[in-house]
C-alpha cells in the first residue's frame, strides 16, 4: 500500500496559483524524486506535506488516514520531516543544540540533559556515517556545506518515516554529496520514504526509484526512473524541447590581461595564489570545496582581507572593500555565493535591487531621476528576460532563477568588466541555467573577463575555457583544452593532497 497518496491538491497565494490538482503517490522503502523548474510547485507541495503551509483543496492520505497539519510539529508527530535549502538553523547554538532544538533530552528536573544529548548526537552521527562534525562547534563557524549537513542531521534526529530532502545536495561539495546519496539509499533500505528534490539530473538518476514531474503547479508525469531518458524528463519539465544546456564554446580570449593576481593570500585558507585572467575569457575555478575558492572570490572582491598584488587591466590596485571593487569600467563585480543573504534585498523591489550599486548615477543636482532609473531598469529586465510582473515586484517573491538574474543585472549595471561568478547556477532551474551560460559566453565575446566557480563539475568542464584547480589554498593545476575533464579536475584536486 502507498505510504502517501495525494489527490487534487491545490494552493493559491492571492491571485497566484501555486498548485492546481496535483497528484502524487509513493510507498515505504522508496526514493522518490520530485522534478520541475523553479516555480513548478515542488516547494509548495513539500511545504504542505511538512506542515509549513495548509492546502486549499484536495486530499492527502498518509498511511491511509486523512492528513492535514497545522504546523511542522504536527507533521513530525505523523512521522514527516523536511530538510530545506533555506537553512533553519540558529547561528549562536552549537551543532548538537541545533540538531535537538526543541526536542532536547530532559533530566528529571526538566533541564537539558547534556550528557544524554551528546550521547544521542554521537550515536546519530555514527549510525549514518556523517562527515566530520563536532557536536560542540558553534554553528556560525561552519561553512554553508557543513550547515547543510547539520540540517540533515536535524531532520534525521526526528526518526521520520518520510524524509523530504529539498535541494539538500546543492550546497554540498562532491564528496559530501556522494555521502548523502548513499545515506538516502540507506534510509530507503530501512523502510523509510525519501522524497528527493534536486536540479542535478545525475543525482536523480543515481538514486531515485521513481520520479514525479511537476510543471505549472500540476503533476505532468510519473516514471520508473530506469524507464525514461534525460531528454524526455527535461522536455516534460520545461514543456518544450531544450536544444542544449551548454552553449558552443567559441574561444574569444585575447592576449590582454584583465586581472592578474600574484602571491595572493588570506588567513589560513588562501596561501599564495597566482593566475592571470584574460579579456574575453571564462576561467573556471574548481577543486574540492573548502580549498580556498570562497576566500579567493571574496578577497578579490574586497569582502575579506588579503595580501598580495592585484592588477586590473594592467594597473595595480588595492581593494579593501566591495565599494572599491565596484568602481566603474575598471572595476570587479561579484555574484555572491549566498543569493538571499549577500545578493538580494528580498523585501525590496526588482528596481531597487538592480540599481542599488549605481544609484549615484541617476542623480542630477543631488536628486534622483526616476525616469532615467526606470529606463535603465527596463533595459536590463528586457535584456536578461527577468520574469517579474512589474519592476516594483518584491525580489523575494521571484523564483530562484529570476532572483539570480536580478543579481546579474545589478552586477552588469556597475559596468565592471571583470566578473566573479561564485556558483551562479546553484538552486537555479535548468532553463535559466542554460540562459546564464549563454549570457556568460556573450559577455566574454564582448570582452568581459569572467572568473567562474561551480560546485557542479560538469559546468566547469563544459563552459570554462581554462580551469584552475585549487588545493590547500593554492592553484594546484591549470587545465586547458582536452585536459578539461571531470577526471582531470578530480585528479589534480585530490592526488597530491593524499600523498602529502
Amino acid at each position, binding site marked *: 500500500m502507498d505510504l502517501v497518496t495525494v489527490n487534487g491538491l491545490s494552493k493559491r*497565494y492571492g491571485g*497566484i496559483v*501555486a498548485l492546481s490538482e496535483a497528484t502524487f503517490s509513493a510507498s515505504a522503502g522508496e526514493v522518490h524524486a520530485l522534478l520541475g523548474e*523553479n*516555480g*513548478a*510547485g*515542488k*516547494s*509548495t507541495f513539500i*511545504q504542505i506535506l511538512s506542515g*509549513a*503551509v495548509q492546502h486549499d483543496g484536495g486530499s492527502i492520505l498518509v498511511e491511509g488516514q486523512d492528513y492535514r497539519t497545522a504546523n511542522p510539529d504536527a507533521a513530525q508527530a505523523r512521522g514527516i520531516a523536511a530538510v530545506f535549502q*533555506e537553512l533553519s538553523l540558529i547561528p549562536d547554538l552549537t551543532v548538537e543544540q541545533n540538531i535537538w532544538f526543541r526536542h532536547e533530552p530532559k533530566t528529571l528536573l526538566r533541564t537539558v540533559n547534556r550528557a544524554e544529548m551528546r550521547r544521542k548526537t554521537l550515536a546519530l552521527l555514527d549510525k549514518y556515517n556523517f562527515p566530520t562534525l563536532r557536536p560542540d562547534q558553534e554553528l556560525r563557524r561552519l561553512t554553508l556545506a557543513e550547515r547543510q549537513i547539520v540540517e540533515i542531521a536535524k531532520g534525521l534526529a526526528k526518526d521520520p518515516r518520510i524524509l523530504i530532502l529539498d535541494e539538500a545536495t546543492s550546497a554540498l561539495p562532491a564528496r559530501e554529496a556522494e555521502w548523502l546519496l548513499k545515506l538516502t539509499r540507506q534510509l530507503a533500505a530501512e523502510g523509510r520514504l525519501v522524497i528527493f528534490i534536486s536540479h542535478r539530473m545525475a543525482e536523480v538518476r543515481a538514486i531515485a526509484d521513481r520520479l514525479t514531474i511537476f510543471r505549472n503547479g500540476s503533476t505532468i508525469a510519473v516514471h520508473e526512473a530506469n524507464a525514461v531518458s534525460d531528454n524526455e524528463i527535461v522536455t516534460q519539465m520545461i514543456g518544450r524541447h531544450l536544444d542544449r544546456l551548454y552553449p558552443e564554446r567559441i574561444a574569444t580570449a585575447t592576449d590582454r590581461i584583465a586581472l592578474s593576481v600574484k602571491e595572493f593570500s588570506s588567513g589560513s585558507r588562501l596561501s599564495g595564489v597566482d593566475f592571470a585572467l584574460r579579456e574575453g575569457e571564462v576561467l573556471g575555478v574548481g577543486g574540492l570545496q573548502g580549498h580556498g575558492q570562497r576566500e579567493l572570490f571574496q578577497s578579490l*572582491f574586497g*569582502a575579506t582581507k588579503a595580501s598580495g598584488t592585484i592588477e586590473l587591466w594592467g594597473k595595480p590596485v588595492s581593494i579593501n*572593500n*566591495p*565599494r572599491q*571593487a*565596484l568602481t566603474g569600467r575598471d572595476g570587479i563585480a*561579484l555574484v*555572491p555565493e549566498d543569493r538571499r*543573504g*549577500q*545578493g*538580494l*534585498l*528580498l*523585501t*525590496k523591489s526588482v528596481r*531597487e535591487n538592480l*540599481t*542599488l*550599486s549605481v*544609484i*549615484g548615477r*541617476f*542623480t542630477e543636482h*543631488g*536628486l*534622483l531621476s526616476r525616469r532615467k532609473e526606470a529606463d535603465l531598469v527596463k533595459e536590463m529586465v528586457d535584456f536578461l528576460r527577468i520574469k517579474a510582473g512589474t519592476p*516594483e515586484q*518584491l525580489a*523575494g*517573491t*521571484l*523564483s*530562484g532563477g529570476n*532572483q539570480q538574474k536580478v543579481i546579474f543585472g*545589478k552586477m552588469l549595471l*556597475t559596468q565592471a568588466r571583470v566578473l566573479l561568478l561564485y556558483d551562479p547556477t546553484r538552486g537555479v532551474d535548468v532553463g535559466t541555467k542554460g540562459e546564464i551560460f549563454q549570457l556568460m559566453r556573450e559577455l566574454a565575446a564582448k570582452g568581459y573577463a569572467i572568473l567562474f566557480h561551480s560546485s557542479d563539475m560538469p559546468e566547469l568542464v563544459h563552459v570554462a575555457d581554462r580551469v584552475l584547480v585549487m588545493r590547500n589554498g593554492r592553484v594546484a593545476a591549470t587545465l586547458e583544452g582536452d585536459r578539461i575533464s571531470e577526471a582531470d579536475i578530480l585528479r589534480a584536486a585530490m592526488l597530491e593532497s593524499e600523498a602529502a
Partner: protein
Amino acid sequence: MSAFLARNRLIVLAYAGMVVLLLVTALFSPGFLSISNMRSTVVLAAFVGIVALGQTVVIIGGGIDLSVPWVLNSAAIVMALLCGGQDLPLVWVMPLLLAGGALIGLVNGVGVAQFGVPPIIMTLATNVILQGLILVLTGGSPTPSAPALIQFLSVGRIGGFPVIALIWLALTLAATLLLSKAAFGRHLYALGTSATVAEFSGVPTARTTILTYVISGLTAAFAGMLLTGYSGQAYLGMGDAYLFTSIAAVAIGGASILGGSGHYLGTVAGAMVLTILTGLLPALNLSSGALLVVYGAVILLTVSIGSETFSGLGGKLRGKAN
C-alpha cells in the same frame, strides 16, 4: 495610485488614525478643533516631530538613538547659559550647538559603524555621559531665560502660522527629499534591510550609518534650543519625554523597528497622533498615570498592526519562493 497606497499602507493608516483620533477628541472636548487649539497642538507636535526626524533616519538604517533626551537637554541648557538672555550671541551659539549635536552623533555613529558597539549601548552611554556633564556644568542651578529670538521661533507667528510649524514643514520637505530623492535614501533603506547585502552591493555602509546618527544629533540639538524658547527657559530633564515619543512616533508612522522601511511622512502623522492623545486624555479626566498606560497601549497596537503585515509578507516570501 493604488500601487502607492499598497506600498505605503502603514503611512496611510497612520494618517487615518490621526483623523479618527481628532474626531473622537472633538466629541469629548468640543473646543478641540478650534483654530487656536489646533495651532497649539501642531506646535507641540512639532517638537516631537523634529526630534523624531533624526530618530526616523536612524531606525530606517537599522539602528536606534537613545541619546536624544540629553543631546536635546544639553543644547537647551548650554544655549541658555551662553546667551544669558541676549539675542545677539545666538548668531554663533546656534551654529556651535548644532555642530555640537552633530559631533555627538558622529561619536555615536563611529562607535556603532567602526567599532561595532551595539546602537542601544552606544547611544545609552552617550546619553548618560551628557547627563553627567550637564549636571557638573550647572550644579543644578537654574539657567537664564531664553533669548527673545528663540522664543519667536517657537511660539511666534508669521501670517497666522506658528513659525515652528513652518520650520517643521521645511524640515519635512528636506527629509522627504533625502529619503525619496537622494542616493543617500536608497543606501539607507538597503542598509536597514540587510547590512551584508548593502556592503556586497558597494553601499558605503559605514558612512551611511554615521550620517544617520549625525542627523539625529542635529535634530535633537535643534529641538532642544526651540523647546527652550517654548518653555521660556532651560531646565534639567526637559528632554526625557522625547526618548519614548520620538521612537513611538516612528513606530506609529509605520516604520519597522528592525529597519529597512518607513518614511518621515509617517512619522509626522505619528507625532500628531501622540500629541492629540495627550490632548484627549485630560478631556477624559484621565490621570497622567493613565495617560502613560494608554500611550503604551497605542504603541503596542500600532506595532502589532505593523508586525502582522510584516509576518504576512514573510509568509508570502516563503510561499512563493519556489
